[in-house]
């Protein structure tokens, strides 16, 4: 969907009118059901060899420029984390003694109930086809609330640009345009060149894509087949209300930088706080009333000073 300037301004006006006319409505939050064709990734730390082919493929597929800021002389592409020009990155976990190691692929988790879309006031970030958390720059005002809201620290801002955008993985949805899914080897796949680039190029199938159900089934199969190999858990199955990108690991997930979350969706907590503050619209009315009173007082004072000055005949 493309939104032009006219539509945006109209929406602002309509929203303003609604805010003036209507009373604040607060209702119980309904969890939206996940579509059956929700796509995701499954990353398996025991398979990843850290070749970073996915990082390079991601750059090519999304047209992001290599980040050379951390390499002396600017000769390598060395993002330290996801950033305004990096949608996926391979990181390394090393234990203190150096013996326990694991790679970790970071990208958007495409939560079942995302905090970012909940925080986004105009719907620039929204779950669209296949449950992909998608970004529409035409609706973005650059408030960066999504950055604050995301428990995985995923959305990034183009700080260096005059007209910055939010940068995050969108599961290469621009490549899938016009292509249709078909079942190949038990997974829903696009024709080659239309699916998520990172999963398509992985030489070890450390990261694969498919629908969430298929990936969950595959993850359970791997856990059952090699129980000694893995931490007995699929990260993202229920964490933070569940994510469409799932992880299997041989080291505890916290060590990979994945936060410990309850099964409650993150935005539910956020919404409880936010809605608490604005309950009955009391807090804003009190705040603006106070400000109005101060202004009124100052105005009165200034008016009386002016009249006294005129009387004095200085001007």
């Amino acid at each position, binding site marked *: 969907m493309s939104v032009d300037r006219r539509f945006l301004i109209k929406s602002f006006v309509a929203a303003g009118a609604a805010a003036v006319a209507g009373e604040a409505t607060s209702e119980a939050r309904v969890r939206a059901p996940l579509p059956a064709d929700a796509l995701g990734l499954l990353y398996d730390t025991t398979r990843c060899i*850290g070749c*970073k082919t996915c*990082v*390079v493929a991601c750059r090519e597929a999304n047209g992001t420029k*290599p980040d*050379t800021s951390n*390499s002396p*002389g*600017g*000769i*390598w*592409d*060395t*993002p*330290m*984390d996801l950033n305004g020009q990096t949608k996926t*990155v*391979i*990181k*390394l*976990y*090393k234990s203190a003694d150096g013996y326990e190691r694991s*790679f*970790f692929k970071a990208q958007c988790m495409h939560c079942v109930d995302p905090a970012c879309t909940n925080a986004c006031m105009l719907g620039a970030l929204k779950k669209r086809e296949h449950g992909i958390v998608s970004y529409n720059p035409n609706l973005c005002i650059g408030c960066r609330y999504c950055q604050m809201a995301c428990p995985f620290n995923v959305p990034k801002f183009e700080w260096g640009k005059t007209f910055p955008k939010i940068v995050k993985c969108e599961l290469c949805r621009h490549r899938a345009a016009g292509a249709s899914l078909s079942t190949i080897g038990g997974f829903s796949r696009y024709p080659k060149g239309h699916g998520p680039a990172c999963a398509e190029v992985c030489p070890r199938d450390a990261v694969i894509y498919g629908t969430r159900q298929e990936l969950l089934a595959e993850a359970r199969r791997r856990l059952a087949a090699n129980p000694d190999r893995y931490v007995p858990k699929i990260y993202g199955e229920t964490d933070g209300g569940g994510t469409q990108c799932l992880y299997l690991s041989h080291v505890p997930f916290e*060590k*990979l*930088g994945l936060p410990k979350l309850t099964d409650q969706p993150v935005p539910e907590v956020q919404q409880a706080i936010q809605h608490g503050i604005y309950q009955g619209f009391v807090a804003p009315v009190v705040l603006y009333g106070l400000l109005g009173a101060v202004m009124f007082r100052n105005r009165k004072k200034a008016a009386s000073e002016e009249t006294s000055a005129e009387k004095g005949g200085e001007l």
Partner: protein
Amino acid sequence: MTSADPIAGTAKPQSKVDRRDFIRLCTMALAAVGMPYATAAKVANALAAKKLKPSVIWLHFQECTGCTESLLRTSHPAISELILDLVSLDYCETLFAAAGHQAEDALKKAMRENAGKYILVIEGAIPTKDNGIYCKIGGRTALEIVHDVADKAGAIVAIGSCASWGGIPSADPNQTGATGAPMVLKGKTVVTIPGCPANPYNFLGTVLQFATFGTLPELDEKNRPKFAYGSTIHEQCPRRPHFDAGRFAQKFGDEGHRLGYCLYKIGCKGPATHANCALKHFGEVDDAWPIGIGHPCFGCTEQKLAFRVPLHTTIDIERPMPPDTYPPIHAKQGHVSPVATGVAGVIGGALLGAGYMASRKLGEKPPSEENGPRKEA
């Protein structure tokens, strides 16, 4: 080859090439362009049919003949096989037995008999200053000759950097106004095979494809065959693992240099040079190419690099790739210390105060001096 052919009349091959050898030759030549094995027989048949043996006119201008010298040292096919069995080399100043009027007649005859079909190979830059008087053959300038011969050519191939974009003759101060064939023959497709010298197999592959199928290989935006110039030296370099691991020769003859480390820091232009030298070495000798013998790539195929950027100056990497290292799981985030916050607060406060005082002064009385307002602003 007809008996009237000047080359056929003077130099008969010693060894007779039978059909088996012939197909073997074609296979090897085609392998250079990455064509399927099965096409070798087609090439052989096409070339064996006398009429299809392509006429080649080879023009030399401002150059060192290094590209010809490089071509002379090929073995599959060898130059003798090339010019006697695979193509009909009808005019070439270096390899001609004929001279003077005889040679010029051969050129005219070849152009007349094969009009629209012959392959024109240009070696060397073309001087354009002062109407091109700085290079003349048989009383005609290079400009006149190249326009004349290119007019009726079936395909035009510029071999070497000089013919492709100017090469050494076009380096500063370029007193003859030397430039490449594509710049002179505007509007015509000139396949360029840059290199100093050009790799002979890139040339052979291109010419033999045209001779057999009448087509040219896929070309890039500079009309270079993609099979040879599609990737950079850096992308195919045997020393690439050293680059990725951060192992560099820091100066000539140091420990790293002797261990065969990456030559980027002593000026290698590989990361911005499009060529297949790393895969196709020169003179039939393994590792016979600059980086193979321990010298940084000079960027000889690139107009923006060769003879323009100093030999040992490092250049920007065209497409940086990840190194052999990884960011840690908890990447250090930039943070602001409390002291810095305090200092910033003090400065901000002082500025605010100063602004307030200035605005009060502005209101009090009009400025007496001429530059008063500016001082306060």
